[in-house]
């Protein structure tokens, strides 16, 4: 009964959120809020997606940028080759991200702790090097993208991208919430606490880690897919920028990884602070602020914002905070 009312509240929240986003794109004339909001939404999607493997399973993935870049370049390659619409680009990016997650998972998920993290850093470097040498998508010099005409009811492409990214956020959050409340979530939590004990209690640890890695990878790549259209440009060093990894990780940890809402809160807090600072001071201060906040939270609130809100907050306490 309790669980059901949580569910209703959650889906009502989703509908309200999407309606609000949609009506904002229809009412607000200034483009800037959408331009900045897109980045915040993108980071929410990244932090939530990262947290499925990094938070629930406790496998700290430094390869967010690899999955992000793969999403960007899947969209670019597909758009250049066939002129496929945005939705198809995103879907294709998700599939490629999932396959990459499967491959990477098989190779690296037997490693634990720091070894897994290092392997995922190497992954990004390898893929970036490959893309740099791929002429079709512009190689190291990057590629200019001509946006296709915008579809109704939107009057500008950025507004449409803002709405699309909001939908991706909803998808990521719904999946993350579903996992948290399901058997998979309990299994991931068990293997995060103690992998051997989980195995001996019947948890198929390798399979669950692979599933988490695939879902996380698919969501990160999907969130990255619209980036080329957003910037009207793509180049390997920005698409595979390590800052995506650091930001996703920092936002998830600052928000708290024990509940799906944690990464959302962390990304909103850090993302909007960064946007504010980029306008008021300089875009370079972002990184400094990220670092300082991470240090403060690690020292003062190791369980993140949700840990502050409710000290004994537990993963499976239901759908809503």
């Amino acid at each position, binding site marked *: 009964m309790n669980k059901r009312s949580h569910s209703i509240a959650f889906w009502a929240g989703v509908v309200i959120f999407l309606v609000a986003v949609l009506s904002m794109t229809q009412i607000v004339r200034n483009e800037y809020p959408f331009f900045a909001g897109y980045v915040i939404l993108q980071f929410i999607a990244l932090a939530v997606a990262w947290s499925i493997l990094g938070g629930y399973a406790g496998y700290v993935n430094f390869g967010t940028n690899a999955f992000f870049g793969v999403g960007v370049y899947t969209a670019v390659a597909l758009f250049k080759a066939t002129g496929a619409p945005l939705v198809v680009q995103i879907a294709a990016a998700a599939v490629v991200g999932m396959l990459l997650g499967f491959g990477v998972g098989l190779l690296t998920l037997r490693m634990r702790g720091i070894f897994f993290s290092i392997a995922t850093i190497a992954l990004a470097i390898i893929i970036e090097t490959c893309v740099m040498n791929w002429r079709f998508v512009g190689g190291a010099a990057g590629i200019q993208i001509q946006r296709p005409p915008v579809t109704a009811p939107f009057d500008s492409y950025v507004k449409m991208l803002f709405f699309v990214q909001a939908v991706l956020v909803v998808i990521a959050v719904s999946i993350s919430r579903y996992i948290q409340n399901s058997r998979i979530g309990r299994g991931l939590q068990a293997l995060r606490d103690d992998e051997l004990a989980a195995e*001996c209690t019947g948890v198929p640890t390798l399979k669950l880690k692979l599933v988490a890695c695939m879902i996380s990878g698919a969501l990160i790549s999907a969130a990255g897919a619209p980036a080329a259209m957003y910037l009207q440009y793509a180049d390997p060093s920005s698409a595979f920028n390590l800052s995506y990894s650091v930001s996703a990780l920092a936002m998830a940890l600052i928000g708290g990884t024990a509940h799906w809402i944690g990464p959302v809160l962390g990304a909103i807090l850090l993302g909007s602070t960064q946007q504010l600072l980029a306008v008021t001071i300089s875009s370079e201060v972002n990184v400094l602020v990220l670092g300082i906040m991470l240090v403060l939270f690690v020292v003062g609130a190791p369980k993140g914002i949700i840990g502050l809100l409710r000290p004994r907050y537990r993963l499976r306490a239901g759908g809503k905070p």
Partner: protein
Amino acid sequence: MTVTAAPDAPLLQVETLTKTFGGFTALDNISVDIRKGERFGLIGPNGSGKTTLINCISGALRPQIGSVVFCGEDITQLPPHLRARRGIARSFQIPRPFKSMTVLENLLVGLDFATVGSNLPEEDVAMSILTRMGLSSKADALTDTLSQVELRKMELARAMAVRPKLLISDEAMAGLSHSEVDEVLDLLISLGEEDITIIMIEHIMQAVMRFSERVMCLDAGRIIAIGAPAEVMANKRVQEAYLGT
């Protein structure tokens, strides 16, 4: 699971098991059969291979030579979670609780993943196991608030959630007081009465003597004595292994 063993066939057959770590032979050609419903004590000095043996049985380690047959099925190559689903559960020498979960949730892991086809709600099954173990008042406590004896019981309760045919208890009584040892021992004996086969590793001799129907003593990876508890204790080699020559 599809193989139906003959009624008098042993539940667990360990055959010519050999496990080496580099140049060190931890288990050397171990063969033993364990009957269904048996209470089996496993003793031996530190480093004699007891935990390695049960790691090979539960799947945490794979032996180089030999096989483990459970209910007539060769499980030597199966990963631990598939062995758990076939009915092999264990506790750990140093308790390994799921720290971010409550006691009840610790049990739900096993009920979620290892147990198939139960009509009762999982929470009820978990609660009944906890009541049985005398832990019902701690159901909602996090595991880091438990005392040592409660932690040991929680490990056994979590193993019970797997609905085991074979329960392996790895020094569940280490570090407990006399009365606590008796408490845990009574629990294990009562579990043995419901058709669960139990292998108990223990250093506390009075517990081993009271519990076991049969005792096996390992020393340096070899079986040096196996038989009735009193017989094994009287064995000269066993006494030498424990007391030195």
